[in-house]
């Protein structure tokens, strides 16, 4: 039970928060601080239990290095999201406590996915996570866009869940089990079964929807644009990482990937990279731009999954860490600046930010350079890893598509740097932001730089997971 400590802590935190929030309707600060310290305690618990292993309730939940790794990632993503959303919510006069609660429940769902030993558990986790996110996307209930975002996400998400469930059912029909370990074991014997492969394919569709891979990406731009900005950041990192934890667990293995599944994943990856990067170029809204960039990054990570070798698995996990920090950071900068009149959502609003808010602009520049994969920032190493994995797996064409689309990516990421630094127009006024949130962003930027220069110990840690 000791190894379950982080999840239990988090669930306990959720319950405590429910009470605190209902007692203190008028003062939101209590809920906020309880969440911050609670999440910090959970992160501490994760570190304490880092080396423990256990299996709970008949292999339903398997706690080990893999789940601890992802657990930490989700907790950090949640913590950054909560820290960065306080002022944003206060400006919009929305309750912080309820927001924190939903973030925590979503995080529990994510942790369940990463520690699932059974497809039913994956499904349960995805549902818990998604339902919380549906609500979070519509958290600004008086804004039309937020409602639209929530509804779209919900309808399409429900559809994707159907695929997922149907896939699980077919796999069960063919193999007689929903335990992931058993399914993987039976895989070679089932290689002739059409029902089994249909199930695997449907499972992939359901998960590809959650990671926002082409052609299951249609919801992404609208949902990210309409959702409260910190929520978009959380969805693009935590939720994506959670779905990837399931994908890597099931699909990044050579014996699950027959040639046809490998080809399907490769094509999905290539299509995501191409579509995401090219469409992002023409966006004028920064959140939409980041939404398409998120599709593109799903493509890069899927390239690592398609490679299905040690390098690929390590690469995807490393990429997820880096992506979490840089993307939460980028959305974080936007949420600190964004004001009620939808200011700071178009590129033009950022002109001269380097003069008015030099530190924020520098942070944003770091995140943008890292997202575009330029060394010495960590985004480069993530890309390097997945491309190296692809070349090793004889998918050189995928790596070439990856690098070519990265060039396109450079263009739109640097457009933001251009307006922030090179534009001589009069800058527009910005909101003041608290030291805590700026410090949180600073930490994210430091991690992005640090992991780009000294990645060795993190990679060694990830390598041990497989």
């Amino acid at each position, binding site marked *: 039970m000791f190894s379950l400590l982080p999840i239990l802590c988090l669930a306990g935190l959720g319950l405590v928060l429910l009470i605190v929030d209902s007692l203190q309707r008028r003062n939101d600060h209590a809920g906020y601080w309880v969440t911050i310290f609670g999440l910090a305690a959970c992160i501490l618990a994760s570190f304490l239990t880092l080396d423990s292993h256990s299996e709970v309730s008949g292999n339903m939940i398997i706690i080990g290095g893999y789940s601890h790794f992802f657990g930490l990632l989700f907790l950090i993503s949640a913590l950054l999201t909560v820290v960065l959303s306080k002022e944003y919510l206060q400006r919009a006069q929305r309750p912080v406590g309820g927001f924190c609660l939903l973030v925590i429940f979503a995080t529990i769902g994510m942790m369940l996915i990463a520690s699932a030993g059974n497809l039913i558990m994956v499904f349960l986790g995805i549902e818990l996570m998604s339902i919380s996110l549906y609500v979070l996307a519509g958290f600004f209930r008086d804004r039309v866009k937020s409602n639209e975002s929530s509804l779209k996400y919900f309808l399409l998400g429900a559809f994707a869940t159907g695929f997922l469930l149907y896939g699980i059912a077919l796999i069960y029909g063919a193999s007689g089990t929903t335990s992931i370990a058993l399914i993987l074991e039976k895989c070679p014997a089932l290689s002739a079964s059409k029902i089994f492969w249909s199930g695997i394919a449907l499972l992939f569709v359901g998960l590809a929807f959650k990671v926002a891979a082409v052609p299951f990406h249609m919801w992404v731009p609208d949902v990210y644009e309409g959702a409260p900005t910190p929520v978009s950041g959380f969805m693009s990192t935590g939720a994506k990482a959670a779905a990837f934890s399931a994908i890597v667990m099931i699909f990044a293995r050579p014996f699950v990937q027959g040639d046809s599944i490998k080809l399907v994943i490769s094509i999905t990856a290539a299509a995501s990279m191409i579509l995401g990067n090219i469409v992002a170029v023409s966006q004028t809204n920064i959140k939409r731009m980041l939404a398409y960039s998120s599709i593109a990054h799903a493509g890069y990570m899927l390239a690592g999954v398609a490679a299905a070798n040690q390098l690929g698995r390590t690469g995807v996990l490393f990429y997820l860490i880096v992506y979490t920090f840089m993307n939460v950071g980028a959305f974080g900068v936007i949420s600190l600046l964004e004001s009620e009149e939808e200011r700071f959502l178009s590129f033009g609003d950022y002109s001269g930010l380097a003069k008015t808010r030099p530190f924020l602009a520098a942070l944003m520049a770091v995140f943008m350079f890292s997202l575009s994969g330029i060394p010495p920032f960590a985004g480069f190493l993530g890309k390097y890893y997945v491309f190296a994995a692809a070349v090793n797996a004889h998918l050189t064409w995928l790596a070439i598509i990856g690098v070519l689309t990265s060039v396109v990516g450079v*263009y739109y990421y640097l457009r933001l740097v251009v307006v922030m630094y090179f534009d001589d127009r009069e800058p527009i006024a910005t909101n003041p932001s608290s030291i805590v949130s700026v410090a949180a962003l600073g930490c994210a930027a430091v991690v992005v730089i640090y992991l780009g220069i000294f990645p060795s110990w993190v990679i*060694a840690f990830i390598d041990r997971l497989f």
Partner: protein
Amino acid sequence: MNNSPVLTYVIFLPLFGALLLLFVRRDKITLIKSLGLLFSLVTFVVSVYLFVKFDSTNSAMQFWYSKPWIQSLNVNYTVGIDGLSLLLVMLTTFLTPVAMLSAWNSIQQRVREFTFMMLLLETGMLGVFCSLDLILFYVFWEGMLIPMYFIIGIWGGKNKVYAAMKFFLYTMFGSLLMLVGIIWLGYYASTIPAPGRFTTDLIQLYSIGTQIPVAIQTWMFLAFTLSFAIKVPLFPFHTWLPDAHVEAPTAGSVILAGVLLKMGTYGLIRFCLPLFPQASFAFMPYLSILALIGIIYGALVSMVQTDIKKLVAYSSVSHLGFVVLGIFALTVESVQGSIIQMVNHGLSTGALFLIVGMIYDRRHTREISEFGGLAKVMPILSTFFMIVSLSSIGLPGLNGFVGEFLILLGSFTSKFLSEWFAIIGATGVIFAAIYLLWMYQRVVFGKVDNPANRNLSDLSIREIAVLVPVIVLIFWIGVYPGTFLAKTEASARQAVLRTAGQYQLRNLAVTKPGGGPQAIQPGEGNTGHKE
């Protein structure tokens, strides 16, 4: 001298200075400028130590230093220099303080950021010349784009955004394909018995060059060469250059022309030739033809420019064409000439940009037609201008002559190129004389027609201090090039042997009956690139 971290100090001293600057208040401008200058000067002094201690009889890597970096990918932090890189390291550490000093008064806004970026840029450039691991090299190669991008974009001229973006995207496009090449090379090393594992260590990879199948070598060679050709820039990949040069501030242009372009030619000689010998031979004539086109085309376009800075920018295309020609002629003389010509071009074109910048600071225009008779109002500047122009033309006694002569001599005697390459290339020298002297005549001689020129002040002490060190080196290399040539000879010989030798060995092995893999004729690779 191995396993001494002194090279690491040289590389990271500027970075350390840059980080230190972050703790200085932004309004203490003089302190910031002095700190920047101080750090670049200290770096220069340490690099002079390298130059003195460098053993010119040894062709192996010196000041070699290695530490594990990313163990699971077998990437190491490995640095070292040989005769090819030593002079370029010196050029970098020499030109950076010069450029900083030249910007003392012309950069007024965001001085702290400017100094920060310049120091960052210096670390990036030094890293490129010293890295002996391909991934480490790539990190510096790409990372150095960021400070240059900001220097052009923030302190540039009217079209700065366009120029900065074009510069970035062009370079990025080439280098990302090179990245795939690097990964593929590392992967290939793991499939053959010799290294037997994924590696990007340059010295190890040197030994596997000939084992790579020719068709794949061709692709890899193209990926690497495209990246370097864009940087050089080789015709027809040169279009980013005039934009970037014209829009960049003077200090940026000096570094851009002085050092950045050399990274391309350095890459050709350090990576392309020795790593892919057969493919290099197959493409030798084509690249030499491109180099020739560059020489002539650059010179012709220079001739018709109305903007002095643009003229100097296009002259770079022409001069770098010589360097590429020298590299692909693949004789010891021509390779040595190419190295020394890289330094020469850095000095003379750097100085030309400095002088253009000094004129621009006074008149805020660079149109040739705006000037005339500067000799009367600015005698000191005109003298310096004359020396530098003549050096750029290649007048005997000045530095340009040494490099161009060696390159032409080498390509004339080259076993691999017809002598026509040297003959056509030599016309470039004549063209250079035409466009530079004609420009000089229109700007400096004649009457002072334009009243705006009448009261121009001559160079200040600071400006003279900027130019004099460059002029001293111009004479030094011109009169006694032995100091510098001696350092390069062993390494140039080694580079030629590594490429030509491997190729010939392979060919000999192939001609034996039943021995070795399938026969590879020099012409066979030619068809490879048309696939």
